C-alpha cells in the first residue's frame, strides 16, 4: 500500500512539475544529504580526487564502488517489484568513449567533477568557487554552441541507445547483478588487502 502510493506520487510529481514546487524541495533535500556525505567521504577535496587518479589514495573508488553495489541491489530489487523504472542514458561509442576520455582529462586538470565541485564550494575551496565553476559553465556553453555540428556526426558514431548489460546479453537481470556485485566486493577486498 505504502509503496504503491509512493509510486503514484512519483508519477504525479513528474507530470505536475511545471506548477508544483514540491519536487524542487525534494531535490534540495537529496542534494543536502548527498553533499553532506561527499564531504564526510573527503570527496570534496582536490587532494583526495587527484590522489585517486595518481593511484595513491583509493577513497574515491571505495565510495563509488560501495555506492554502486548498494544502489544496484536496491534498484534492481525495486524494479523487480515494479516500484521503480530504470532511467537510462542512451549512448554511442563516439559519445561515451571520446566524451569520457575528454571528461577524464578535465577531471585530472581541475581535480573536481561537477558534483564534487559543488561540494568543494560548500567546503570553502576558492579555486573551485572561482576558476573551477567558471570553467565548467564555459565548457558546457562551448558544447552547446558546437552541438548542432556534433549531434549528427561524432555523437552518433557507434550508436547503441539506452541499453543495460542484462539487455545487451539478453539474460535475466540477476544473472548480471549478482556477479557484478560479487566482483565489486572482491575488488574492494583486494584494494584493502593491497594496503590502500
Amino acid at each position, binding site marked *: 500500500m505504502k509503496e504503491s502510493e509512493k*509510486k503514484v506520487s*512519483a508519477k504525479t510529481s513528474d507530470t505536475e512539475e511545471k506548477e508544483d514546487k514540491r*519536487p524542487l524541495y*525534494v531535490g*534540495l533535500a537529496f542534494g*543536502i*544529504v*548527498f*553533499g*553532506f556525505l*561527499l*564531504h*564526510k*567521504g*573527503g570527496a570534496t577535496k582536490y587532494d583526495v580526487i*587527484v590522489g585517486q*587518479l595518481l593511484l595513491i589514495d583509493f577513497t574515491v573508488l571505495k565510495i*563509488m564502488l560501495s*555506492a554502486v*553495489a*548498494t*544502489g*544496484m541491489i*536496491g*534498484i534492481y530489487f525495486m524494479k523487480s517489484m515494479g516500484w521503480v*523504472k530504470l*532511467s537510462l542514458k542512451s*549512448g554511442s561509442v563516439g*559519445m561515451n568513449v571520446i*566524451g*569520457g576520455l575528454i*571528461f*577524464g*582529462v578535465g*577531471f*585530472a*586538470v*581541475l581535480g*573536481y*567533477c*561537477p*558534483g564534487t565541485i559543488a561540494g568543494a564550494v560548500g*567546503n570553502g575551496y*576558492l*579555486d*573551485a568557487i572561482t*576558476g*573551477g565553476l567558471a*570553467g565548467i*559553465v564555459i*565548457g558546457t*556553453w562551448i*558544447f*552547446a554552441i558546437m552541438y548542432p555540428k556534433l549531434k549528427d556526426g561524432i555523437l552518433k558514431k557507434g550508436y547503441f541507445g*539506452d*541499453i*543495460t548489460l*542484462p539487455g545487451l546479453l539478453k539474460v535475466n537481470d540477476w544473472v548480471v547483478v549478482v556477479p*557484478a556485485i560479487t566482483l565489486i566486493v572482491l575488488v*574492494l577486498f583486494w584494494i584493502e588487502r593491497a594496503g590502500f
Partner: protein
Amino acid sequence: METIASVFTDTYWSPYAVGIGIGILSWLSFLISGKPIATSTTFARAGGMIEEMVRGEKANQRSYYEKIKLQIDWQWMLVIGVVIGSFISAILSGDFQVGVWVPSLWSSAFGDSAILRVLVAVIGGIILGFGARFAGGCTSGHGISGTLQLAVSSWISAVCFFIGGIIAAHIIYFVIA
C-alpha cells in the same frame, strides 16, 4: 567516546559508510522522485541562463538548450543542496576552509601561486564541462547512477573517465611537474 553527536562532528567517515549512504540515497531518489542523482546538466543550464541574461531570448533557440530546457528544476536544486550539505558537514566538523586557493597536493608540485592554480582550474573546468556534456553525464550521473543501473553507456563512460583521468594526472605530476 563516540556519541551520536560526534558522528556528525567527525571530519571523515569510512568511505564504505559514505558509499552505502549514497547507494541508499539513490534508492530513495528513484522511489520518491523517479530520477537518478546527477549534476552536470545543471551546469549547462546555468551557462544557458547566463547567455539568456546577456543575449535575451535568442539563447533559448540553441538546439541544445531547447533539448535540456533552461529552467530551475529538481537537479538544479540538488546541486544547490550539495553546496549546502557539504557546508553543513564542513562547519560541524571544523573543516570549513578559509582563504584556501591552492590545494596542498598541487602546491607540493607547482608552488603556491593562486593565479596559476585558478588559471589551470578554468582550463580543467572547460575540458570537464565540455566532456561531461559530450559523454551525456558525469561522475554522478554516469559514474554512480548509471553504472548502478548497469547502463552500457555509463559503464563505458565511467571506465573512460578513469582511463583519461589516470593518464592525465600522471602526465601532470610526473612529466610536467
